[in-house]
C-alpha cells in the first residue's frame, strides 16, 4: 500500500509542530524519517495514526484521501505502529496485548484465548521471534516487549508500518535483528516508515531518507550520505560526533563494591555476586541490555535498595545498610535512569527541584525553614551555568523539554561537592545539543578526580565516555574490558558471552 502525506500542518497553540510536511512511502520501501528529538517526527506519525487531528493537509492511501477519527480507523485501513513508548498494558499477557482492540471471541463476548495465542505463535514463528504468548509483558525484557509491539501491528495485517524510534532500548544484536525484520517485512511488500535519530541505522536500512527539523522537512538525503552530512542536515549545523577527552589521570581506588547481591521481594537474585572498583578520575561504564541488573546495581549505590549481601565502600567507609540521605551525605551524585519518575518532581518549580536533595541544612534550610533567597540565587546561577532553557526558575520542571529536565538533574547533582558520581543513561531522550553538553560535564567531573559510573545501554555512549566498560548479563558481570574493545566483542558480551582474556568478574 502506498502512503502519502500532503501538506500536514499541526499546531499546538502558538507552536507549529508540523509545518506543511509532505511524505511519500511506497510499498516495499523503507522510508527513513530522520530528525532530532522534538523535531516533530512523532507528532507527524500521531497525525497519521489518527491520534491527533491535523490542522491542515491530507493523508492518502493508495492515492485515495482518507480520514482517521482515531487509531481504530488507521488500523482498519492497514496502518500499524510500533510506538517509541510501548503501547502495551504491563499487567496483561502477550496474547492479551496482541488481541486488544480486535479480540477474537466465542459466543457472548467470551475471549477466545486459544485463537489469540495461536496468532501470537504463528506470527512469532514466521519471523523467528520466540515470544511466549502467556508471559506477562512487564516481566519481559524490553527487546521482547518491542517484538510484542511488532506482533501487535502485524496481527492486524498492517501494510504500512511505522517504527517510532524502535532501537532506543535495544542491544546492538537486537538492533541488527530488528533491521533484519524490517527488511523481511519490506520484502513482503510492506511500506515502512522508520523514525530515528541514529545515523548508523539510517544508512543501514533506508531506501529513502527525509530529514525534518523544527517541524519542517529540510531535505532528502541519499542512503549513501556520510554521518557528518546527515548530522549537519539534522541539527542544522556541524556536530561533533565524538566526545573530546584527555587521557585519564587515575588516583587510588575510591569506590569498592564487593560480592554484592540484590534480591527482589519474590526471591529473584537480580544482582549476583558483583565486585568491582572505580578509581578517582575514571569513568566506569556499566553496559548491558536493560533489565540485566544495572538499574538495581545503580540503585544500591544510592542506598535505594538494600543488598542482601556484600559491601559498598567509598573511601573506606562502609555504606551498605545506610539510608539514602547518608549516601547523599557521603558525596554521591546520582542521575537516575528515568528522570521523569525518579529525578524530578514535575509539578515543582525548577528552583525547588534544584535543591530537592540539599534540604538537610544550610544554605538552603535554616531552622527548618526554606531560605528562598539562597535557593533562588543558586537556581539562577545553575540555570545560567548549565544553560537550562526555561522561562524562569518558577517554571514547573515538568514543562521543560527532556534535555533541559536532564540538565536540571545534572545541575543539582554536580553542584555539590562530590566523591562519587553515578549517572544512569544520562542522555536518554535528550537532543543532540544537550547530549554534547552532558557528555562534556561528565568528562569534566572525571577530570576533577571524581570516580564516575555511567550506566549505558547504547554502545556509542559506552565507548565514547568510558575508560573501562563493565558488561552485565542476568545480574552477573560478564567482564570488565577497556574502552578500546571492539564493538562486536562488546555486543557479544552484552548477550552473555565472555571474551577471552577479559578481567575476571
Amino acid at each position, binding site marked *: 500500500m502506498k502512503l502519502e502525506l500532503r501538506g500536514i500542518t499541526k499546531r499546538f497553540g502558538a*507552536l507549529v*509542530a508540523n509545518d506543511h510536511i509532505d511524505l511519500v512511502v511506497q510499498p516495499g520501501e523503507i522510508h527513513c524519517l530522520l530528525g532530532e528529538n522534538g523535531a516533530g517526527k512523532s507528532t507527524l506519525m500521531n497525525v497519521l495514526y489518527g491520534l491527533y487531528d491535523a490542522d491542515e493537509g491530507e493523508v492518502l492511501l493508495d492515492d485515495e484521501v482518507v480520514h482517521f477519527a482515531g487509531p481504530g480507523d488507521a488500523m482498519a485501513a492497514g496502518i500499524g505502529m510500533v510506538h517509541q513508548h510501548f503501547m502495551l498494558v504491563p499487567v496483561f499477557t502477550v496474547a492479551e496485548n496482541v488481541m486488544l482492540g480486535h479480540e477474537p471471541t466465542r459466543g457472548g463476548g467470551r475471549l477466545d484465548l486459544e485463537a489469540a495465542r495461536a496468532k501470537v505463535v504463528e506470527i512469532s514463528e514466521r519471523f523467528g521471534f520466540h515470544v511466549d504468548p502467556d508471559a506477562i509483558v512487564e516481566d519481559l525484557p524490553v527487546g521482547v516487549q518491542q517484538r510484542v509491539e511488532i506482533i501487535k501491528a502485524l496481527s492486524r495485517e498492517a501494510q504500512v508500518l511505522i517504527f517510532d524510534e524502535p532501537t532506543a532500548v535495544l542491544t546492538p544484536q537486537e538492533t541488527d535483528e530488528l533491521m533484519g525484520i524490517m527488511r523481511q517485512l519490506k520484502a513482503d511488500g510492506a511500506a515502512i516508515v522508520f523514525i530515528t535519530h541514529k545515523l548508523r541505522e539510517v544508512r543501514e536500512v533506508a531506501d529513502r531518507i527525509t530529514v525534518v527539523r523544527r517541524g519542517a522537512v529540510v531535505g532528502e538525503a541519499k542512503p549513501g550520505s556520510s554521518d557528518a552530512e546527515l548530522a549537519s542536515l539534522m541539527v542544522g549545523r556541524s556536530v561533533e560526533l565524538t566526545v573530546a577527552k584527555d587521557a585519564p589521570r587515575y588516583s587510588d581506588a575510591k569506590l569498592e563494591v564487593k560480592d554484592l547481591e540484590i534480591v527482589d521481594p519474590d526471591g529473584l537474585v537480580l544482582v549476583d555476586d558483583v565486585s568491582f572498583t572505580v578509581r578517582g578520575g575514571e569513568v566506569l561504564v556499566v553496559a548491558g541490555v536493560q533489565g540485566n541488573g544495572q538499574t538495581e546495581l545503580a540503585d544500591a549505590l544510592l542506598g535505594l535498595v538494600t543488598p542482601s549481601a556484600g559491601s559498598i565502600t567509598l573511601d573506606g567507609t562502609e555504606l551498605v545498610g545506610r539510608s*539514602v*540521605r547518608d549516601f547523599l551525605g557521603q558525596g554521591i551524585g546520582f542521575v537516575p535512569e528515568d528522570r521523569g*519518575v525518579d529525578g524530578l*518532581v514535575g509539578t*515543582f518549580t525548577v528552583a525547588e527541584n534544584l535543591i530537592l536533595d540539599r534540604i538537610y541544612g544550610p544554605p538552603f534550610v535554616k531552622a527548618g*525553614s*526554606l531560605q528562598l533567597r539562597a535557593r533562588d540565587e543558586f537556581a539562577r546561577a545553575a540555570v545560567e551555568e548549565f544553560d537550562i532553557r526555561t522561562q524562569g526558575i518558577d517554571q514547573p520542571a515538568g*514543562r521543560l523539554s527532556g534535555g533541559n529536565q536532564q540538565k536540571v538533574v545534572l545541575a543539582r547533582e554536580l553542584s555539590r561537592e562530590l566523591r562519587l558520581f553515578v549517572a544512569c543513561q544520562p542522555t536518554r531522550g535528550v537532543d543532540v545539543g544537550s547530549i554534547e553538553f552532558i557528555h562534556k560535564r561528565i568528562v569534566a567531573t572525571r577530570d576533577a578526580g571524581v570516580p564516575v559510573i555511567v550506566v549505558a545501554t547504547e554502545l556509542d555512549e559506552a565507548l565514547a565516555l568510558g575508560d573501562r566498560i563493565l558488561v552485565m548479563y542476568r545480574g552477573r558481570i560478564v567482564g570488565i574490558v577497556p574502552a578500546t574493545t571492539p564493538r562486536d566483542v562488546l555486543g557479544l558480551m552484552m548477550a552473555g558471552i565472555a571474551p577471552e582474556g577479559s578481567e575476571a568478574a
Partner: protein
Amino acid sequence: MSAPEDRPAVPAESPAAEDVARKRTEEPENRWSVAFREIVGGSWGVSVGAVILAIIAGSIMIVATDEGVRAASGYFFGRPGDLLAAAGGAISDAYSALFRGAVWDYRADSFAESIRPLMVSLNYATPLIGSGLGLAVGFRAGLFNIGGQGQMIFAAIGAGWIGFALQLPWPLHMLLAMVVGILAGALWAGIAGLLKALTGAHEVITTIMLNHTAYYLLFFLLATPGLLQAPGSANPKTPAMLESAQMPKLLGSGYHLHLGFLFALAAVVFTWWLMERSKLGLTFRAVGENPHAARVAGIDVSRTTVWVMVVSGALVGLAGVTQVLGTSVTGFSTDVDAGMGFDAITVALLGRSSPLGVLAAAILFGGFRAGGATMQAAEGIPIEIVTVIQSLIVLFIAAPPLVRAILRLPKPGQTPRRKAAQPAKEVAA
C-alpha cells in the same frame, strides 16, 4: 483587582522582542494579569456561576416544600400569577433568611445585633478551618485522610478530660488542654500513618476503621462512670469544661466567636508556612507529587508518611479542641465531631488544598451552617436543602466548563496564552 496598568505596552513585533519584553516584566505581568483574568473570565466567574446554579436548584426544592406555593398551584390555571408570586416569595424569603442567619441581620436593631450572624458563621467555620487544613496537608502529600472524625474525637477526649478533670489557672489550663488534645489527634492519625509506613495498609481503610473505633471508644468513656461521664449523670455526656480551660469569647459573651478562631487563623498561617516555606512541607509535597523522586533525593518516604499523618491529625485535633474548649463548653457527647471530619473533606477539596482556599471554603460552609438554622427557624425550610446546595456548589465549582456551558459564560484565555503552548512542547519532544 484594578485594571492591569503594569501590563507591558511593548508590541510584540518579533518573537525575540517579545521574549525580551517578557523577561524584563515577568513578575508584575504575571501577578496582575492572572488576577485580572481570573476575576473576569476565569475561576471567579465560575465560582459565582456555581453558586447561582446551586441556588437555582435549591430554589426548586424550596418551592416544592412551601405550603403557600402548594396552595397556589392548586388553582394554577385560574390565576397563574399567584403561583409565581408565591414561589418568588418563598424563594426570596428563604434566601434572605439564609443571608440574615449567615452574614448580616438587617432586621436587627443595632449594629451589634446585626453583625452577630457573621460571628456565628465564623464560629462554625473555626473547626472546619482546622480540620480542612489537616486534610489538605494530607492531600498535598498524597494521603487521603478520611479519619477526621476519629481524630477530632480523640482530640476532644484528650482536651475534654484535661478541661474538666484538672485544676489549673487560665491560660495554663487551656493551653495544656489544647496541647493534649492536639497531640491526641496527632496520635490517632499517626496510627494510620504508622500502619501505612510499616505494613503498607491503605490509609483510606485504616482511617475509616479508626473513625468507628474512636466513636465507640468515646461512647464507652462517656457511658462509664468515673471516666468521661459527668458525675451524677446517667447520660453519655461530659461535665462542663472548667472556666480556666475555656477559650474566652473574643467579643464578649454576646457573640459566639471565641479564641479558637484566632488559633484557626494562626493555623492557616502556620500551614501556609509549613507547606510553602519549610523543609518539612517541601518533603511532604515532594512525597505527595512524586514519591520516587523524593526517595532519590534522600527523603525517607515512610517516615514522611507518618509525619504527614501526625501533622494532619494535629490540625484536625485543633478543630476538635476548639469545639470542646470553645463551642461546646457545657460538655460534649458522642457527636462532638459534628460531621466536621467529613465536611472537612469537601472543604479541603473545594479550597484546592491551599491554606487560603481552605479558609475561604470553611467560612462559606460555616455560613451555610449558620444560615441554615435561621432558614429553618424562620421559614421552616428543611435543613437538607442546605446540604444539597452546598454539594451542588462544590460540584459546579469543580467543573468550570459545565458552568460555562450552562450559563454561556465566555471561555477564559480566549487570547492565546503562553501557558497554552507549554504542553505542546512536551508533546512535540
